[in-house]
């Protein structure tokens, strides 16, 4: 939490403003407050509440008995129960969570292991044809996954890697690496070059520059990149659906169990949806200042 928050404060080029309001990313209000401003505030809150109502409804329904979930008009007042959460967590749910956790954490670690040096080579000590390499990385992100799924399926079958969680780890790494390289590069470019040159002049080797000088400065950016990668890996469905079965299936695959039984299990579905979304909602809230940067691959801060 503090890592990303600190970063937002230090790395964001704060424009000189007359008030201190820029600290939180805002500027002095353009519209004058008063009755009009207050009405606009109420309107904004109303819009936000309507927009987020499916989420509120999901959480509410998660605490219902199934009978209370099927009422016309919809019930807002009811006796809350933890029964649905118990049913979700008590079933065969935990192995899916374990698989998702492995796929998310290990692929993110692997992305950083490969991506940090690559981003370094593309920013601090730019190699020749840097632009071409960047172009290549990002172009792979635009390759539709449906165009590669068949060979991946066939290849994984041949080397007996179907229904194996490490297959997903590798694929999620490939999926997130381009985003990470771009994002990390945009952070590296913000590092003052003076400190690198100073370290080099004192005879520090390349790896020493990387580890002792760059990494501490880069830590917030690396954390932000990791959070973005986690969001994408946790939510990934297509590879998980097609390349796993009973053993290595992840949380999104678990959710498909509710397709056929819908009509009977809304409360339980809501409880499951709440539980599986919670980790990413928290990660996203923590990283919200970095979200836009990750989603635009470093192009927008």
């Amino acid at each position: 939490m503090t890592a990303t928050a600190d970063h937002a404060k230090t790395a964001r080029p704060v424009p000189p403003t007359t008030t201190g309001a820029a600290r939180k990313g805002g500027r002095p209000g353009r519209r004058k407050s008063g009755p009009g401003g207050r009405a606009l505030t109420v309107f904004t809150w109303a819009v936000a509440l309507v927009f987020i109502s499916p989420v509120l409804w999901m959480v509410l329904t998660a605490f219902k008995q199934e009978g209370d979930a099927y009422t016309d008009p919809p019930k807002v007042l009811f006796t809350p129960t933890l029964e649905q959460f118990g049913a979700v967590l008590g079933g065969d749910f935990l192995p899916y969570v374990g698989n998702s956790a492995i796929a998310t954490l290990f692929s993110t670690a692997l992305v950083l292991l490969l991506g940090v040096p690559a981003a370094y080579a593309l920013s601090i000590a730019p190699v020749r044809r840097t632009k071409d390499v960047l172009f290549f990385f990002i172009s792979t992100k635009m390759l539709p996954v449906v165009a590669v799924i068949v060979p991946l399926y066939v290849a994984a079958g041949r080397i007996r890697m179907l229904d194996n969680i490490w297959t997903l780890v590798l694929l999620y790494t490939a999926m997130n690496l381009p985003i990470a390289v771009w994002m990390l590069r945009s952070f590296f470019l913000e590092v003052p070059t003076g400190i690198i040159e100073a370290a080099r002049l004192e005879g520090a080797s390349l790896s020493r520059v990387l580890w002792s000088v760059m990494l501490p400065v880069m830590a917030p950016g690396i954390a932000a990149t990791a959070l973005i990668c986690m969001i994408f890996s946790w939510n990934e469905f297509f590879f998980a659906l097609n390349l796993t079965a009973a053993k290595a299936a992840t949380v999104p695959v678990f959710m498909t169990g509710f397709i056929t039984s819908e009509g009977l299990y809304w409360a339980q579905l809501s409880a499951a949806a709440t539980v599986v979304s919670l980790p990413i909602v928290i990660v996203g809230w923590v990283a919200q200042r970095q979200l836009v940067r990750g989603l635009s691959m470093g192009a927008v801060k």
Partner: protein
Amino acid sequence: MSTLNTAAPTRAARSGDWARRAPLLPALIFTVLLTQLPFLATIWYSLGSWNLLRPGSQQFNGLANYVAVFTDTQFLKAALNTVVITAGCVLVSMALGIGFALLLDRKFLGRGVVRTMLITPFLILPVATALLWKTTMLDPVFGLVGFALSPFGLGEVDWATQFPVASIVAALVWQWTPFMMLLVLAGLQSQGHDVLEAGQVDGAGAWQMFSFVTLPHLRRYIELGVLLGSIYVVNTFDTIYMMTQGGPGTASANLPFTIYQRAFLGFDIGQSAAMGVVVVIGTIIVAMLALRLIFRTFLSSQEQKS
């Protein structure tokens, strides 16, 4: 920064070159192995006929799959659905995103909380989003949307069956609006303070300020959002799989879902590969535009710094 190393191509410099390239290579090789090789294999598969269920049925048949694909009404319908779903989702969520961003671009009580609320739909597991929209939101009898619309006589509509594409677009718009909002908000907050003040001094009204000052400034961010959004949404699979399974019939199947069906339910590797190649070519055209834009935005933001 770029002039750090302008050494002559001596042997030392050349080995330095390799030392500098080395950190890049693992990532590069990994990416080539896991993305380019499979795609080459897809091209190869697309030139043959192969049914997964019959080992040894692999056979070269040239461009026959491509001919079949382009005369396949299901493929053409799926292509049309892909365009409708992508364009519908991107345009509506961009319009909403601009609205939300404008609401957020002022100081008010609880701004941080509202902002956090508005980004949340993007963070809900997409698979869960699709299921919840299909059931608790759009169900004809017990759904929240039907309840909200019942004063208008739209209470008992079976949205997911009668309007499957619109239902999918609705769920996708809900999911992607925060993305657009964040991009536009970043654009609004990068707007020069002096320009706005100058406009106010000149006596421009709120609407004039928006259309002549803010909107032109936002153009880059809006373009970026539309193009990046398109690239993500074109690949939509989970929402369709969870909400309609492409149905009723194939009424709401897009290209990724159709390819999935051909490959994993029909086991027709050749045709699904050919469809994949066609999708890639289509994507490349959009992607080229996006890439140029990202480069422009990215490079100009670097220039501003130095």
